[in-house]
């Protein structure tokens, strides 16, 4: 199966994001305006299942299906976590879209999501350009 499994894993995740309506501008707006609890419950229950899974994987010393040891790198906390995180939050609200849903929106036939993707790629390039000068 090789690397094609990632296409299937991505499709699984894309179907879930779409059916959960996490890719809807309306749902993101309703979340940030506290009009509906749905998205908070989705994130909360996802983290609950994810955390139990990671705990069990570590506790039982599971290996990947390919027999390799499991590698779960930690995340580094720095100034970028806060500043970058805040800027992303503004963009999340403005577009009603976070990174995964950009791709799922394109697949769902929303052509204007291509502008969001073009903006995101420009933003990533801008970060590459400014990285040496930014506080970390």
């Amino acid at each position: 199966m090789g690397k094609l499994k990632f296409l299937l894993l991505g499709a699984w995740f894309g179907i879930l994001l779409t059916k959960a309506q996490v890719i809807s501008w309306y749902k993101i707006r309703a979340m940030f305006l506290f009009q509906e609890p749905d998205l908070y419950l989705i994130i909360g229950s996802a983290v609950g299942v994810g955390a139990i899974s990671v705990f069990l994987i570590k506790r039982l010393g599971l290996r990947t299906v390919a027999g390799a040891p499991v590698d779960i790198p930690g995340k580094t906390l720095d100034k970028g976590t806060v500043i970058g995180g805040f800027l992303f939050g503004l963009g999340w609200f403005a577009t009603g879209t976070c990174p995964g849903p950009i791709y799922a929106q394109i697949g769902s036939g929303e052509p204007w999501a291509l502008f969001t993707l073009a903006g995101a790629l420009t933003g990533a390039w801008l970060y590459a350009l400014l990285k040496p000068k930014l506080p970390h």
Partner: protein
Amino acid sequence: MPSSLLAPWPWWVAGPLIGLTVPLMILVGGKNLGISSSFRHLCAAILPKSTLAYLRSYDWRKESWSLLFVAGLVLGGFVATCFLSSHPQPLLPPEIHDAAGALKLLGGGLLIGFGTRYAAGCTSGHSIMGLSNLQKASLVATFSFFAGGLTGALILHLMTGVAWGPGAGGGS
């Protein structure tokens, strides 16, 4: 096909299944769930001659799984909308489909790309994967994401008077 499958899935179905993607990625893919690294990937692949260290140091050929994963996301959006939805809802408001709306999405997208790379993760990599792995950085990142989003909502409230709270309308 049962009509409940074709309707939007309730949070108690969709949320836990989204969480299951964490162990699936680890055990089947040998990778950690994350999407925003694909922006770096695409930049490095589109600009192979870039001298910027952040792009030059990234071996996008070796990390091709990231591109396949986001191609899968596009495919998943297509399958869910065309075959698993009886009444697909609009994802973006109709009035955004003009030049001003395109500029707004470009600007917002810029904040998404810059912010997620600066924070080294997005809702998937930090708020789902990182929190599942009890990472302090991911908790700080998640609070920062929401601080940004709620600030946006506050600005909109002050500018347009849009109402807060339950019963104020909103989500379809």
